């Protein structure tokens, strides 16, 4: 690990003041950042510890949603009684991720910002445009079994590894951000950037900006499912995952909010898929049509070709379960 300066900030204003300079990173749980620093994939010159900031609460919002402080741990969020009752897809997604020890340390803000688990990003002996812009992408013709089929570019085929963010995307969450220029909210759908030719820039956050909270809109109701397909039944990243909020009324689909993990560089959501489902009678043929729309632009890279049929089947399984009568 490279040497760095360490500053423990007492409040948000101090953290923002200390965060000037491109070499500075905030540290909260540190479960991903320190791992990457040990490998010198990331080598910040300065860490600003934000664990003493007052960002640890979960509060009801005026509109009937929840404001989740950026420092709320994945464990506490998954176990929150309100989340379990009214946003169960979020509890399920959190519980499907990592291990008990990691969930106790990993935070809401940090989870959104975790880096890809692409093998070549971690391996400093290989080219990677995300780690070292302009060096190339070893994954496209390499071991890409776990990597993306949607939203990729010739420069990067990395996936975003979060489960939590997939559920938040399905729920229409917003990210509260604070910087020297003040506070603002960013819809999660606008928060991440496609890789294009700058895969090292993953979000719209500017240097020195801090995530302070995630806002959940009021409960979406419906049947909520998080289905994660992976190589082991526990403690493994998703090959494909689906977060679904689906309601059926009078035999027709009244609501379909669907987000996907393991497919793209960000938690993936496609309004055309949802539009094709809403108003229709659930059927295998309909679910197949939805998959056609979702996967129209999907591109495998050899090792991950299997994700295309796997996504089709996982989506069908989730929609079947979500629309079954009496459960």
């Amino acid at each position, binding site marked *: 690990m490279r*040497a760095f300066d*360490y500053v423990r900030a007492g409040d948000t204003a101090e953290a923002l003041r200390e965060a000037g300079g491109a070499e500075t990173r905030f*540290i909260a749980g*540190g479960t991903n950042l320190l791992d990457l620093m040990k490998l010198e994939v990331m080598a910040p010159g300065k860490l600003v510890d934000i*664990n003493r900031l007052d960002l640890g609460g979960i509060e009801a919002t005026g509109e009937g949603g929840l404001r989740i402080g950026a420092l709320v741990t994945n*464990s506490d969020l998954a176990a929150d009684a309100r989340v379990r009752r009214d946003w169960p897809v979020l*509890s399920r997604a959190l519980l*499907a991720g990592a291990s008990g020890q990691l969930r106790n*340390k990993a935070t809401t803000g940090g989870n959104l910002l975790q880096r890809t688990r692409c093998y070549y990003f971690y391996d400093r002996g290989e080219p990677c445009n995300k780690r070292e812009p302009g060096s190339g992408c070893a994954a496209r013709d390499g071991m890409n079994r776990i990597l993306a089929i949607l939203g990729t570019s010739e420069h990067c085929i990395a996936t975003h590894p979060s489960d939590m963010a997939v559920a938040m995307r399905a729920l229409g969450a917003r990210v509260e951000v604070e910087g020297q220029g003040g506070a603002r909210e960013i819809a999660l759908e606008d928060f991440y950037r496609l890789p294009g030719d700058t895969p090292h820039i993953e979000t719209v956050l500017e240097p020195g900006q801090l995530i302070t909270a995630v806002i959940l809109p009021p409960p979406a109701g419906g049947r909520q499912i998080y289905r994660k397909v992976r190589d082991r039944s526990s403690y493994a990243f998703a090959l494909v995952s689906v977060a679904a909020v689906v309601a059926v009324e009078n035999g027709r689909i009244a609501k379909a909010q669907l987000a996907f993990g393991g497919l793209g560089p960000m938690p993936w959501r496609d309004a055309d898929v949802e539009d094709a489902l809403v108003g229709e009678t659930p059927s295998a043929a309909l679910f197949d049509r939805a998959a056609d729309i979702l996967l129209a632009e999907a591109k495998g890279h050899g090792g991950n070709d299997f994700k295309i049929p796997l996504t089709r089947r996982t989506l069908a399984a989730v929609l079947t379960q979500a629309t079954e009568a009496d459960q």
Partner: protein
Amino acid sequence: MQFQLDVNGERHALDLDTRTSLLDALRDHLGLTGSKKGCDHGQCGACTVMVNGRRINSCLTLACMHEGDEITTIEGLGRPDDLSPLQRAFVEHDGYQCGYCTPGQICSATAMIEEIKAGWPSNVTDDLEAQVEASIEEISERMSGNLCRCSCYPGIVDAIRQVAREEARA
């Protein structure tokens, strides 16, 4: 950097490089070698300790971030002449072979039983709002962050199950 760590009820003054992980501080600077270094990347769980009662991977956190926290290691849970209930149960159920992962397993399980008591659901819990039982399936899922390469999992699960049941009755 100068800071203090509270470990197993004792306060220690340290002056360490900011890069020092909590695990290295415990092992190399405080002589508490019960916590083990396996992968050093949060994948194996051998380094598990409790911070303010919660289990974490001590390899994936900086020692200097834990001033003011209450840290408990395997040395703080029991002694050879005064074993903790889980330590006794691991002996009774043969929950180890080489023993390298055992301190992490026991620290993890000690905190995990508290998580069950607090009603935390897991990935295998059917009803997110119901009280959880310490079933084999629940224990296996909740302990998936602790690997045992001797594969003593049946004994580990039996030991944890026995203590979880005793504590649920208490």
